């Protein structure tokens, strides 16, 4: 390995930090031909490929292959229990899914819970980050430790905790509010509220840490100068702090949105999708794993995959999120 110290390619791309990815691909692409001509750079390229290949191949096998297989299966009338009689049905599965109100209903609920939880998490996460930034030296460590607890806890465990806090058999929340007979999971809006609460609790720490990284990059003098110039705290927040951490916010927003859109665990534990709380992931799970409707379920999975891709595209093209900034 020591040999490779001298094996710097003339392109010198290896010296670039990931923070400066903006516009990095274009020079890389045009330079590819010429870059690997010298003996040294060829040897370096070979070593690099050899080292990166195992990981890349495993990645492709464990994700690329299943996705392609799902796409393939989604075009067949296929039940796992009756595989001999499967036949290509020209995309009829997609017609079935897309013309079923259940799909639109689960999609609507998934979008609702994504928008609501991510919006609350952003505000709450920003508040947490402000507190962490301004905390006295002595409490900085403890507060970060405490905030990491929800991050580390298993989602299913968190979902059980919130479920038992509200449910009719064990829940103390009803007792506290004097509505012991109220079944929180018995109607849509309260079930939605409890599921959202569990999600928000679990994932706010992660957002707040990304926000903290963004906040820490704002030069102190800038805020100080605004204060000296007589800016109120609201003006400092909206004119100085927020604009300067826009990229950190956008990256946090994008990754949380994509994650929230896949929500499955909490719903499975709390309501099993009852009362209109089924999400796209739980719909796909019901079709494939519970009912063994492999063809239909694969179509739902592929549609979910496309939705995630669409959200990605929206963020990267629409909001111009630069992944190079994602290091916060």
């Amino acid at each position: 390995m020591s040999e490779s110290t001298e094996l710097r390619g003339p392109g010198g791309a290896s010296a670039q930090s990931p923070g400066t990815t903006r516009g990095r691909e274009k020079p890389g692409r045009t330079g590819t031909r010429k870059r690997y001509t010298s003996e040294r750079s060829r040897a370096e390229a070979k070593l690099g490929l050899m080292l990166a290949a195992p990981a890349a191949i495993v990645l492709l096998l464990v994700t690329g292959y299943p996705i392609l297989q799902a796409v393939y299966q989604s075009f067949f009338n296929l039940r796992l229990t009756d595989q001999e009689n499967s036949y290509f049905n020209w995309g009829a599965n997609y017609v079935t899914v897309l013309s079923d109100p259940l799909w639109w209903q689960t999609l609507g609920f998934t979008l609702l819970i994504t928008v609501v939880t991510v919006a609350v998490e952003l505000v709450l996460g920003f508040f947490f980050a402000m507190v962490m930034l301004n905390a006295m030296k002595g409490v900085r460590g403890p507060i970060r430790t405490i905030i990491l607890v929800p991050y580390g806890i298993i989602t299913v465990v968190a979902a059980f905790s919130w479920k038992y806090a509200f449910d009719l058999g064990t829940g103390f929340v009803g007792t506290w509010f004097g509505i012991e007979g109220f079944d929180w999971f018995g109607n849509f809006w309260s079930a939605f509220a409890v599921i959202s609460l569990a999600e928000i609790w679990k994932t706010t720490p992660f957002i707040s840490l990304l926000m903290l990284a963004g906040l820490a990059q704002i030069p102190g003098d800038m805020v100080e100068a605004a204060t000296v110039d007589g800016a109120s705290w609201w003006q400092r927040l909206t004119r100085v702090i927020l604009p300067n951490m826009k990229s950190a916010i956008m990256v946090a927003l994008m990754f949380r949105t994509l994650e929230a859109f896949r929500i499955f665990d909490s719903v499975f534990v709390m309501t099993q999708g009852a009362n209109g709380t089924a999400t796209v992931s739980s719909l796909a799970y019901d079709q494939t794993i519970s009912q063994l409707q492999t063809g239909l379920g694969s179509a739902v999975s592929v549609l979910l995959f496309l939705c995630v891709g669409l959200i990605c595209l929206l963020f990267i093209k629409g909001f111009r999120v630069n992944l190079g900034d994602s290091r916060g």
Partner: protein
Amino acid sequence: MAATRTTSPLTKTLWIVAFVLIALWALFPVVWILSLSLKSPSDIANRQFWPTELSWENYDLILFGGAQELFLPALRNSIGICLIATLVAVVLSTLAAYAIARLDFPGKNVVLYMSLAITVFPVISIVTPLFNLWSTIGLYDTWLGLIIPYLSLTLPISIWTLTSFFKEIPWELEQAAQVDGATAFQAFRKVIVPLAAPGVFTTAIIAFFIAWNDFLYGISLTSTSAARPVPAALSFFTGASQFEEPAGSIAAASIVVTIPVIIIVLLFQRQIVSGLTSGAVKG
């Protein structure tokens, strides 16, 4: 920002109040499930926050009693499967991240951005075809049948996080050591390994957390205690008798699997935070 602010007693109090509120919010569900796990069977359904008296009965049930066949194999599966999936991911990603961070080769950005893209893949889209394939080739309900798909969780985040760690390492030190007379191997072992180890370790923690948290693979690709991990097993818990609420045993099992998380967080808070924000993708 923090360094330059002048703190009046009022602002100081406000920050302390905010700190206490955050601590309450973050720890509340943990304290609740702990309290629930310490309730005796007669207390479980009393719908109070605190138990009337402390009881170890739920722990007894899952560790030594009737529910141990549900819990202990699941715990063993979770620990074994997650450790192996983490180890494999860390070894593969160390090689790949070293190459991406230090060497110039065609397609390095492809590997990097492919792993970033995979962190946002919907797990259910991968589960569906695997469920069929695993049933056909006999990997359904086995350790290997979970370790392989767990790599789709642990490997991408490891590549991404480690690459950003490795890009920060002052690699010139290696050359400097060689100039000073160290052999290539000495320079690598004495200079590079100590610099790279914290990043590798932090990456392993984050990858392990993600594998430990999995539910969808666990519940879809297993059917017995042969490979079922804890999160999936929890949803199959029953009470001491069939008609009893399993809440107590679920709560106790939840606490048992949460303890290692809290210990890791207590010991390595600084590393985890730096890993999450320098890798900066998901948790």
